[in-house]
C-alpha cells in the first residue's frame, strides 16, 4: 500500500480575472522507502499540489480529489488537531523559498530549537545539542555561531540548509522537498543529497523531490513524474525515463541542457515542439 496516495487532484484559484486551474487532475503516490521526483516547467503546479497535501494553501484555493490518503487515513477532511499531529512530525516539507519561510525576527537557532522542543518534546539543552548536530550534518560552517544568526545574516544557501535541517529534525516518514538545492553549488548539493538518501535508506523515509535539475533526478529518483501546464505528461521509472522518454516535453527537458546549445541560442521547449512537428 502506498504511504501517500492522491488521485485526481484538482486545485483552482479564485482570481480577479476568474477561476484559474493550477493543478488539473494529478495523481501522486509514493511508497515507504521510495524516492519520487516531480519535474516540470515553471508554473506547472508542482508546489501547489504539494502545498494542497500539507493543507497550506490560501482560502482562495478550491481543492478536490477522488482520494487523498496518508498511511490509509483520509487527510482531506482531518480536524486541525489531527493534522497538527501529522504535519511537521511524520510529514515535513522543505519549502521552495527558504529565506521567505524563515521568520526574520528570530535567530535560526531559536527557530529550529523551537521545532525540536514543541514537536519532539526535547528539553532546551537537548534541543540545542540536536540543533548543533543537524547544522553540522547539513554542512553549515561555524555552526555554534550560525545558531545565533538571524536569517538576514546568513547567505541564501545557508538559509536553505537551515530549512533542510528543520525538515529532517523529526526523522519524518515522508519528506516533501521542493527544489531543496537550488541555492547550493554542486559540492554542497552532493552532500545534501547524500544526507537525504542516507536518511531515506536508513529509516525507509519516503521522499518526494521536486526539482528542475535532471542531474539530481538521475542521481536520486526511483520513479519520475513529468508535469506540464497543470497536467501529468508522463510517469516512468528513472531508467526508462532517461533511456526512452515518451513525451515531447520530457525529450525537450533532456535536450535543453545549455551544453546542447546550437550556436548562440539555447533551445526552448517551443523550438523543440516545432522541430518535432516538422519531422
Amino acid at each position, binding site marked *: 500500500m502506498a504511504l501517500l496516495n492522491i488521485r485526481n487532484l484538482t486545485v483552482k*484559484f479564485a*482570481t*480577479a*480575472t476568474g477561476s484559474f486551474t493550477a493543478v488539473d487532475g494529478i495523481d501522486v503516490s509514493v511508497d515507504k*522507502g521510495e524516492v519520487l521526483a516531480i*519535474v*516540470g*516547467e*515553471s*508554473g506547472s503546479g*508542482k*508546489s*501547489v499540489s504539494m502545498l494542497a497535501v500539507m493543507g497550506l494553501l*490560501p482560502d482562495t484555493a478550491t481543492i478536490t480529489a477522488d482520494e487523498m490518503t496518508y498511511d490509509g487515513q483520509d487527510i482531506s477532511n482531518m480536524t486541525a488537531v489531527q493534522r497538527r499531529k501529522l504535519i511537521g512530525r511524520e510529514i515535513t516539507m522543505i519549502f*521552495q*523559498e527558504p*529565506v*521567505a519561510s524563515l521568520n526574520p525576527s528570530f535567530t535560526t537557532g531559536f527557530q529550529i530549537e523551537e521545532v525540536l522542543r514543541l514537536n519532539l518534546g526535547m528539553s532546551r539543552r537537548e534541543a540545542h545539542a540536536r540543533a548543533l548536530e543537524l547544522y553540522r550534518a547539513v554542512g553549515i560552517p561555524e555552526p555554534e555561531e550560525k545558531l*545565533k544568526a538571524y536569517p538576514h*545574516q546568513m*547567505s*541564501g*544557501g*545557508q538559509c536553505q540548509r537551515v530549512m533542510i535541517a528543520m525538515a529532517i529534525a523529526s526523522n519524518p516518514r515522508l519528506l516533501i522537498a*521542493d*527544489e531543496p538545492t*537550488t*541555492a*547550493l*553549488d*554542486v*559540492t*554542497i*548539493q*552532493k552532500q545534501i543529497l547524500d544526507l537525504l538518501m542516507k536518511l531515506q*535508506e536508513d529509516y525507509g523515509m519516503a521522499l518526494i523531490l521536486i526539482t*528542475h*535539475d535532471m*542531474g*539530481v*533526478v*538521475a*542521481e536520486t529518483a*526511483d520513479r519520475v513524474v513529468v508535469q506540464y501546464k497543470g497536467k501529468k505528461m508522463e510517469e516512468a521509472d*528513472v*531508467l526508462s525515463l*532517461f*533511456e526512452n522518454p515518451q513525451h515531447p516535453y520530457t525529450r525537450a*527537458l*533532456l535536450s*535543453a*541542457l*545549455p*551544453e546542447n546549445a546550437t550556436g*548562440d*541560442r*539555447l533551445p*526552448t521547449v*517551443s523550438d*523543440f515542439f516545432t522541430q518535432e512537428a516538422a519531422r
Partner: protein
Amino acid sequence: MTAVVEGKAIVQDYHVPGGMFARARSVRALKGVDFRVEKGKTLAIVGESGSGKSTLARVIALIDAPTGGELRIEGKPVDIRAHRPGPDMRSKVQMVFQNPYGSLNPRQKIGNVLMEPLAINTNVPAAEQRERAEAMLAKVGLQPEHFNRYPHMFSGGQRQRIAIARALMLNPSLLVLDEPVSALDLSVQAQVLNLLADLQDEFGLTYVFVSHDLSVVRYIADEVMVISKGEAVEQGTREEVFANPTHPYTRQLFAATPVTDVAAIRTRVERRRLARAGVQ
C-alpha cells in the same frame, strides 16, 4: 577601453551585534577582491555557498557600501556612503536579488511593480508605462492576466522572472544578477538566458552574473571569477577557466557536477535494488 565597472581591493565586513551571552564581533566576508568588466561583457561569479558572492554583488550594484577598497563606474569613483547615488546612477545600475520574494512588496500588484521604476525615474506617459510593462511580462514568459496579481499568487520561478523583468524596465547599462535562473526549468531558463543575450547584443548591456550552475556559466560568461572564503582564487576568460581550472575548489566543482548518463543510472538503480533485497 574603460571598464563599465571596476573594483580594487574590495573589503566587506559585517558587524554582528552581541547579545546577552555573545560578544559583538565582525565577519570579513570579502578580503580584498579586484575585478573589471568591460562594456557589453559578462562577468560570472561562481563559488561555494557562503563564499561572499551576494556580498560582492550588493557592493557592485551600489546597494551596500564596502568597508574598504575602491569601486569605479565608467571610470569614476563611486562612494555611496559619501554621496547617495542620484536617479541617473540608480537607473543605470540595477540588481536582481537572490531572494525574489523578499524583494517584492507583498501589497503591490505585479503590473505596478513593473511600472513603478518608470513612474519614479522617467517622464514616460502612463499609457506607455503599461504597454512597456505588458511587453516585458511577455518577454519573460508571463501572461497579460498576471498583470493584476499579487506576488504571493505566483510560483517560485515566476517570481524570479518578475524580478528580472523589473530590473530591465529602466534599460540599465549594468545589471547585477544574483542566481537569477536557479529556480527555472531548462526551457524557461533558456528563454530568459536568450533574452539576456539578445539585450546584450542590441544595447551593449554589461552583466555581473552570480551562479553556481557551471553549464549556465559556460554559456553566458566572457570572464569568470571563482571566489572562496571571500577571496578571488581564480580569474580568467571562460575558455581559460573551463579548459584549465587551477584552483582545487574549481576542480572540485567540475568533479561534483551530476551526470545524466544512462549507464550510471543503471548502476545506481541496481545498487538500490540489492540494498533493498538485503534489508528484507
